[in-house]
């Protein structure tokens, strides 16, 4: 076949998105004069069906063998147009895109200058298109298993969906029990479903499902490989309790010398536990764990004459010699569902969270309200005989959300409704309570939310618009100082209890997963999705998906919906069984390679090795790339001394002419 380049250039109007600042006709006219360009056209929407048909017809009728599309970012539509080429029988890698929307029409106002820049970008793309080479996409098998990190409601739901479809799931949870944040909640808004009642059956299901391998009290240490073939290394931390022997009877915890002396994480420090503990009564698995930072035996090597838990345990399950265990397995896809941390209220010192015991957070009140909480569901503030039932209660909303001073510009999306829910529960539990809510705005956007907010107001909860400036003590009371911005009057409100509706933040250890999986963070520091609208569960790393609050604050229905979306994306990979791997990989010219091995050292994926080849009867060392391992970063190319390493579609010989074209156009 005569492979003399015959280029088709297609300039997109994108409605008026491009054409209002770029003279698209002039760009097409200019492109038609470029070397090797056979046709140059402009069209209103290149990505539309007729737009793509235009390209396909030209390939057939004009014999085009290269295509340049000047439109939006290749990150948006490169795959679309590659498919168009393939449909017309052309190798999909004969496509080059010029980004004249995101990088031109949308960022420039001056029509003349923007048009000149669009011409430059098109010229550079056309020059590169001349030099493109056909590439073959390789297919590899997909390991029919999935790793899910985090066993809150998102991870649980995704695990159940994938397992039900018949694939193996490794569900890794950092804490001793599955359940996550949802297990800490008492009721859920707006329906007031009992959180435990709807969650615990699912917790039991993941533990008993034959396709799910539950790894609690475990952390992912390392992930290598690529989409379809990830090698995962998980550290199962020592529980110091034999899981097979422990019956979950709890005698050990009753006997522990530290019983009732260690703040319980599950109860947000409101309740106390022992050094050997079950995080909460319905924990799954119902097996005890010894806290290695608290246990006297593990910290000091001595616990009285002998550890009481060991003496008490009827099955001899306690084993202080237990060590961490490393578990390794292969998966085809990964779902990250690591959830959130609540905002640390002490970062807003004006509200006195650290100073007064009757300033608490929403999650702490949640534990107080809960029947499984430290007070058995009674709203009691203070300890022992001094404990009292608060009558005047003020909620302060948006603590740590929509607040630039703490670096959180975003809305946490759940605080408005959990405040309404808690206010309702308080009026239910304390009939003569006088509850008011200080707010900036009420965002009741979900299904049934506005109705619930309305109901709570009808129940007598007062909403006062104004963001309090401070909370301080006066006598026995706390004073909430604010301005009622609807009446423009200053308020000094004397109350018994202040509840801070703290927002949601990324996990404090979010960095660890970023380092392991190469995720990106968005401006709010949550994990970033591949596209905010069209790829909300995908990430920049192929085969890795997001679910739940790890991606951004959301309520339970949204979390479950996203988890199901992530599960479905993971299943697409697993059930098709094949995945195409990166074709734009590096290649080393063995004729010119001198075998220095520098690229071998550079390669972050160990995809290059030195092999011995026969050159005229002599054995010579040369470097060779393993296509399946290469991810196409091109670090070896820039590092190669002899120019033998080249990245397909990003060769020196393709980029240098692009530079020259941009130069000529000046």
């Amino acid at each position, binding site marked *: 076949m005569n492979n003399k380049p015959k280029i088709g250039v297609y300039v997109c109007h994108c409605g008026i998105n491009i054409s209002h600042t770029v003279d698209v006709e002039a760009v097409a006219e200019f492109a038609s004069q470029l070397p090797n360009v056979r046709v140059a056209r402009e069209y209103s929407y290149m990505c539309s069906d007729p737009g793509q048909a235009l390209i396909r017809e030209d390939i057939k009728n004009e014999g085009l063998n290269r295509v340049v599309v000047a439109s939006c970012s290749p*990150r948006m539509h490169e795959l679309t147009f590659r498919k168009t080429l393939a449909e017309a029988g052309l190798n999909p890698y004969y496509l080059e895109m010029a980004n004249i*929307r995101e990088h031109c029409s949308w960022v420039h106002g001056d029509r003349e200058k923007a048009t000149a820049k669009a011409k430059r970008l098109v010229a550079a793309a056309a020059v590169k298109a001349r030099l493109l080479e056909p590439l073959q996409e390789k297919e590899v098998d997909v390991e029919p298993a999935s790793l899910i990190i985090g066993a809150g409601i998102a991870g649980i739901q995704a695990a159940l969906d994938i397992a039900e479809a018949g694939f193996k799931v490794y569900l890794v949870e950092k804490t001793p029990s599955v359940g996550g944040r949802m297990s800490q909640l008492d009721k859920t808004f707006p329906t007031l479903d009992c959180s435990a009642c709807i969650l615990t059956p699912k917790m039991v299901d993941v533990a008993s499902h034959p396709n799910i391998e539950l790894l609690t009290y475990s952390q992912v240490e390392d992930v290598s490989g690529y989409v379809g073939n990830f090698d995962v290394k998980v550290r199962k931390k020592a529980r110091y309790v034999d899981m097979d022997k422990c019956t979950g009877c709890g005698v050990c915890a009753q006997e522990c010398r530290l019983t009732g002396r260690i703040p319980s994480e599950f109860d947000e420090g409101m309740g106390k536990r022992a050094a050997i503990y079950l995080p909460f009564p319905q924990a799954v698995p119902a097996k005890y764990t010894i806290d290695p930072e608290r246990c006297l035996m593990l910290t000091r090597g001595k616990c009285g004459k002998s550890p009481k838990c060991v003496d008490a345990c009827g099955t001899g399950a306690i084993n202080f010699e237990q060590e961490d265990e490393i578990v390794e397995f292969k998966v085809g896809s990964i779902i990250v569902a690591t959830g959130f941390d609540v905002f640390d209220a002490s970062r807003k010192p004006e509200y006195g969270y650290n100073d007064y015991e009757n300033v608490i957070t929403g999650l702490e009140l949640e534990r107080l309200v809960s029947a499984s909480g430290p007070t058995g569901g009674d709203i009691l503030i203070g300890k022992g005989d001094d404990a009292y039932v608060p009558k005047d209660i003020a909620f302060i909303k948006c603590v740590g959300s929509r607040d630039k001073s703490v670096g959180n510009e975003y809305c946490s999306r759940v605080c408005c409704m959990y405040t309404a829910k808690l206010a309702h529960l308080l009026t239910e539990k304390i009939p003569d309570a006088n509850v008011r809510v200080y707010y900036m705005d009420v965002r009741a956007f979900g299904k049934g939310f506005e109705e619930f907010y309305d109901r709570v107001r009808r129940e007598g909860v007062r909403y006062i618009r104004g963001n309090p400036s401070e909370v301080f003590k006066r006598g026995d009371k706390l004073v909430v100082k604010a301005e009622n911005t609807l009446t423009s009057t200053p308020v000094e409100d004397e109350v018994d209890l202040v509840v801070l509706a703290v927002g949601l933040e990324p996990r404090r250890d979010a960095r660890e997963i970023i380092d392991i999986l190469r995720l*990106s963070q968005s401006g709010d520091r949550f994990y970033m999705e591949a596209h905010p609208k069209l790829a909300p569960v995908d990430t*920049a790393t192929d085969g890795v998906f997001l679910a739940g609050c790890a991606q951004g604050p959301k309520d339970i229905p949204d979390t479950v919906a996203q988890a199901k979306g992530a599960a479905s994306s993971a299943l697409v990979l697993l059930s098709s069984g094949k995945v195409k791997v990166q074709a*734009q990989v590096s290649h080393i010219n063995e004729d010119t390679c001198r075998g220095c091995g520098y690229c071998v050292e550079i390669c972050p994926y160990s995809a290059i090795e030195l092999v011995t080849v026969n050159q005229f009867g002599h054995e010579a060392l040369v470097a060779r790339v393993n296509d399946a391992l290469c991810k196409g*970063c091109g670090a070896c190319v820039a590092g190669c001394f002899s120019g033998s390493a080249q990245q397909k579609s990003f060769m020196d010989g393709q980029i240098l002419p*692009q530079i020259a074209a941009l*130069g*000529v156009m000046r």
Partner: protein
Amino acid sequence: MSEQQFEPSVIAFLCNWCSYAGADLAGTSRIQYPTNLDIIRVMCSGRVNPLFIVNALQQGADGVLVSGCHPGDCHYMEGNFYARRRFTLMNELLNYVGVDAKRFNMSWVSASEGAKWKDVVEEVVENAKEAGPFEQFRRNKINW
């Protein structure tokens, strides 16, 4: 060409995952910046061959920018560390041969930093403007 009218030409090499996506975000957010800078996409800042810098200066650029993910956030784990080291050395070399330090710029722009991308472009274009037209390496005839 008088000093005020001088519109420099800047060529930028952006990694696909962070800086190119950040520039896309600037576009989606309709953040306005000067037209002087043209972008060439590479998969990773670690792919940028130091030769590209010299070549760009030879072929008509008055300034060059290499932009990648923040160190530590590289999509390819360590590509931008290579870039950082390579271009630290490259910078020394350019200074040694008498190229104004303002002409070569390196930045770290993440996929969520559309606003920062604008600041970077403005700064780089301003730098090139101050440095003035670059003739030192210029090829008389450009072959493309």
